[in-house]
């Protein structure tokens, strides 16, 4: 049976898009597309559903609670494949995962390898994600793990502590509050091959609404380009309406970091356009994680994504 997206009174296709957290700069492109009418002019009626710690995007997709969802990292589509869930990544707007490790300032620290033996403050979701890659690459062990509840105070209190963060978020708030500039290691710069801020779509939905999906990706790409390089004020206003705890200075510095580090338009995006994914990156990611024992070696990792809805394809 077919799964057509609902149509609203104005004849636009209704799409609900579930993000992975409360509105923030990391969702800026989508908000920008909403604010500038990029979705609307393609005949889409997009509603952004904010996520949170308990919002399980894959489950929402699997049950049809939303049409599209955000995938935070490359583990998520692979997990879906491993469990036989018919959901795929259809675009990746962050070429580099902005995941960082944060340490106290220390001249002697030359790289992530020097962090061996230290306590790592990690959020629940990270333990089955990039921590697996860190363990495999640097030989860290689970007993180093402490829980990060999105409050950096325990990190600040302990000189030896290392905590996870988003490039755009924690380094700034730690600096603001504690008054020191922490050491920040962008995992992507150390070869962490995960994509981030992916668009996930159920297979049946993608098949039956290919045009709308292409429009969504194209409009989002336009939104991201505008957000990084153009006037972001309209998107910022929408973000702050959805998330009153967000402040403008946080948004501004976050956008700056996205731009400077080429998170959105670096890597393959420079070549193939925003949202691009490549077989090679996916294979590299799968190889690393399968070697670490996360996935069976015979997993059909190619089912985790498709590039056929990206602009200029199909």
């Amino acid at each position, binding site marked *: 049976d077919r799964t057509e997206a609902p149509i609203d009174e104005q004849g636009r296709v209704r799409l609900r898009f579930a993000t992975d957290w409360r509105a923030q700069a990391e969702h800026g492109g989508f908000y920008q597309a909403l604010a500038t009418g990029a979705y609307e002019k393609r005949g889409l009626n997009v509603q952004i559903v904010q*996520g949170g710690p308990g919002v399980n995007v894959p489950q929402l997709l699997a049950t049809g609670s939303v049409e599209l969802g955000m995938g935070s990292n490359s583990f998520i589509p692979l997990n879906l494949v491993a469990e036989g869930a018919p959901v795929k990544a259809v675009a990746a707007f962050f070429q580099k995962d902005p995941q960082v490790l944060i340490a106290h300032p220390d001249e002697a620290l030359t790289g992530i390898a020097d962090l061996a033996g230290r306590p790592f403050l990690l959020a629940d979701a990270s333990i089955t994600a990039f921590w697996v890659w860190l363990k495999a690459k640097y030989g860290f062990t689970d007993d180093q793990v402490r829980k990060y509840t999105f409050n950096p105070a325990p990190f600040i209190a302990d000189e030896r502590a290392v905590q996870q963060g988003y490039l755009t978020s924690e380094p700034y708030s730690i600096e603001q509050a504690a008054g020191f500039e922490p050491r920040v290691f962008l995992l992507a710069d150390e070869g962490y091959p995960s994509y981030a801020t992916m668009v996930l779509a159920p297979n049946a939905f993608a098949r039956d609404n290919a045009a709308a999906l292409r429009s969504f990706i194209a409009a989002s790409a336009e939104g991201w380009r505008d957000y990084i390089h153009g006037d972001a004020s309209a998107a910022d206003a929408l973000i702050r309406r959805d998330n009153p705890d967000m402040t403008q200075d946080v948004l501004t510095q976050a956008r700056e970091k996205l731009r400077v580090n080429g998170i959105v338009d670096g890597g393959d995006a420079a070549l193939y356009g925003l949202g691009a994914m490549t077989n090679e990156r996916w294979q590299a990611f799968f190889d690393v994680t399968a070697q670490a024992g996360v996935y069976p070696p015979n997993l059909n990792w190619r089912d985790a994504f498709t590039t056929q809805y990206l602009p200029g394809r199909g």
Partner: protein
Amino acid sequence: MTRALPPLLLTAVLLIVWEIACRALAVPSYFLPPPSAVAEALVERAPVLAASAAQTFRMAFQALLLAGSLGGGLAVLVSLSRRAERAVAPLAVTLQVTPVVAIAPLVLIWVGLDNADLAVVILAAAVAFFPLFSGVLTGLKSADPDLERLFDLYGATPLQRLWRLRIPSALPFVLEGLRVAVGLAVIGAVVAEFVSGSGATQGLAWRLLEAGNRLRTAELLAALVWLAVMGLALNAAVAAVEGWVRRRSGLGAR
């Protein structure tokens, strides 16, 4: 007035000690801000916090009503049969030890993402359920055995026995269950919002999370102050009901 004096006095003493300790030890404010900073945050963020608190309170209250009617109702039902009690009690214990975070996604999907508030209420009710269920059940079984015999003698129906003997006898235990449940409903509303609140819910949970994330600890504590006020208000309400029950049952004030 004098009733309120001891808690106010103790609170004042604790606050002063805290303030002095913060200043003397120069504790950085993102670890533990002095009470004065919390007070400042309370004033500054008053409108936002009050609105969030109202939202949380509403959900906690609805959860309490839900938990009370389900927990109390189920307890009353199973109290009519030893078998039913034995069958249901393990399920109630199971519900009690099930972490909200584990069932939140299921509930969220079940009620639909557009009804995140309802999901919060249901989850908070699950948290507050057990003390009410258990309190009512224990209470219903605590009637004076000689009065039970009297009801046997007069051939009371199970419903008459329930209504005229067991429920009045149960009140002390029900009130104790309620006292525990009001706190759990409040905390349940916060936790449920943490785990199931999509952006749509605007209760105190997000204030806490964001404040913590941004290391605005004074604001975090200000949100906790609102939670405490809420808990105390509900507790005072229970105490008022208790006073009324005691007067009504002629047990006199304690």
